[in-house]
């Protein structure tokens, strides 16, 4: 049984890394080179939140850190800062997985929006304190609604394409109840 679980773990880790790589590479396609276009959704954040809500046990924290750091390097962001925030957001979600199992489906985009606003604010504040040149806060926050709009697509892909479903809500009390 452990072999099966290990197999599943490795496979799903590879799936996460592959999906993330595809999302970053799509962003890197030299298509919209005219400056001042529409903001594009941050698909990587959608992927992280959707996966963490569904199966946090299949997404180890070091993998999240590695993938987001790689994305930072690829996407010309200050390396490490956004990755650290993403890891924190992911662990925050992992910590609340029990409560999230019972949350309605509609709450997920709201959760993503709240998390992302907090992350953008923190990112902006740190860069502002360290006097790094950055775009205006409003411009950065514009990404949030676009990302929320893209969330259902990513969530559906995970749920239907990869078969990642939330664990059923646990009836009863205490940790032992989950093992029933």
């Amino acid at each position, binding site marked *: 049984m452990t072999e099966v679980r290990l197999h599943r773990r490795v496979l799903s880790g590879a799936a996460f890394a592959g999906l993330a790589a595809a999302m970053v590479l799509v962003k890197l*396609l030299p298509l919209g080179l005219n400056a001042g276009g529409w903001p594009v959704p941050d698909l990587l954040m959608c992927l992280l939140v959707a996966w963490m809500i569904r199966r946090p046990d299949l997404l180890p924290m070091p993998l999240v850190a590695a993938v987001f750091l790689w994305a930072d390097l690829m996407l010309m962001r200050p390396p490490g800062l956004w990755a650290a925030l993403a*890891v924190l957001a992911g662990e925050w979600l992992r910590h609340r997985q029990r409560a999230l199992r019972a949350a309605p489906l509609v709450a997920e985009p709201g959760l993503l929006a709240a998390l992302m606003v907090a992350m953008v604010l923190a990112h902006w504040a740190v860069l502002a304190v360290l006097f790094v040149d950055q775009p205006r806060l409003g411009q950065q926050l514009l990404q949030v609604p676009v990302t929320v709009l893209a969330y259902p697509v990513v969530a559906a892909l995970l749920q239907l394409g990869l078969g990642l479903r939330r664990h059923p809500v646990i009836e009863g009390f205490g940790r032992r109840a989950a093992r029933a």
Partner: protein
Amino acid sequence: MAYGADNGTDHFRPVRRILLGLVLAGLVGLFLIWRIDSPRVERLRAAALDAVIPHVAWVMRPVTGLAQMAGSFQSYAALSEENRELRRELQQMQAWKEAALQLEQKNARLLDLNNVKLDPKLTFVTGSVLADSGSPFRQSVLLNVGARDGIRDGWAAMDGLGLVGRISGVGAQTARVVLLTDPASSIPVTIQPSGQKVILSGDNTALPRIAFLENPDLVRPGDRVVSSGDGGIFPAGILVGQVARGTDQRFRVRLAADYGRLEFLRVLRYGGPEAISDTGGLVGPTAALAPVQGPPPAPEVDR
């Protein structure tokens, strides 16, 4: 048991917390190092891109091609009209071409009479665009030529017509071109015909701003903007675009390069103007022994 996987890790909670702390410290540490010593980390970034992008170019190129085809497919609807318009424009161009040829011959004759030496023609390396910055707040593209092809930081990149940007960050097989529209881009340009020297700085919009304009009365929308070569980093006289007035009533530049279709870019080889190091042979040896008057020699331009 099937759903109890998250509980199985309870024993490892302290370990996990330490691991989280270590990972966070590592990430934040890298960020701080980047803030303190940016070039070193940017070199790491260039190396990371260099390791990845050339190997996935075989996937990205077809996808880019397909997307561009889809984009041009939309314009098929207006094909006949566009065709007619192009024919009309071509006819006008023929007239212009004739005029230009005559002028070129005349110019050559005059230059010959005056015995003028112009700059030797700049040679260039052509690269194709592999990827863009991937961020809405950074305007740059990645070319498939790099240190292997002799590309160096600071060289100018242009498409067939106008200046596009400058090289910033060179890997072995790739080089990044910071476009003129990037907020970090500032280049010295001259506005023709008034000859005013200004700085063209990008601000993430399609039309970069003109900064440090001395006399706005001498500038009119439609004036040509060319690179001025000040600072010795850029070759002078490359077409940049035309002056336009933005919606905010500031002077901006409509770029001559077609930013919608950057596929191939020319990187101009440019070593900078040669520095004049001594006073020449006119001043005799006695004068050379005397203490040097005047400003010390200018420091080498960092390239």
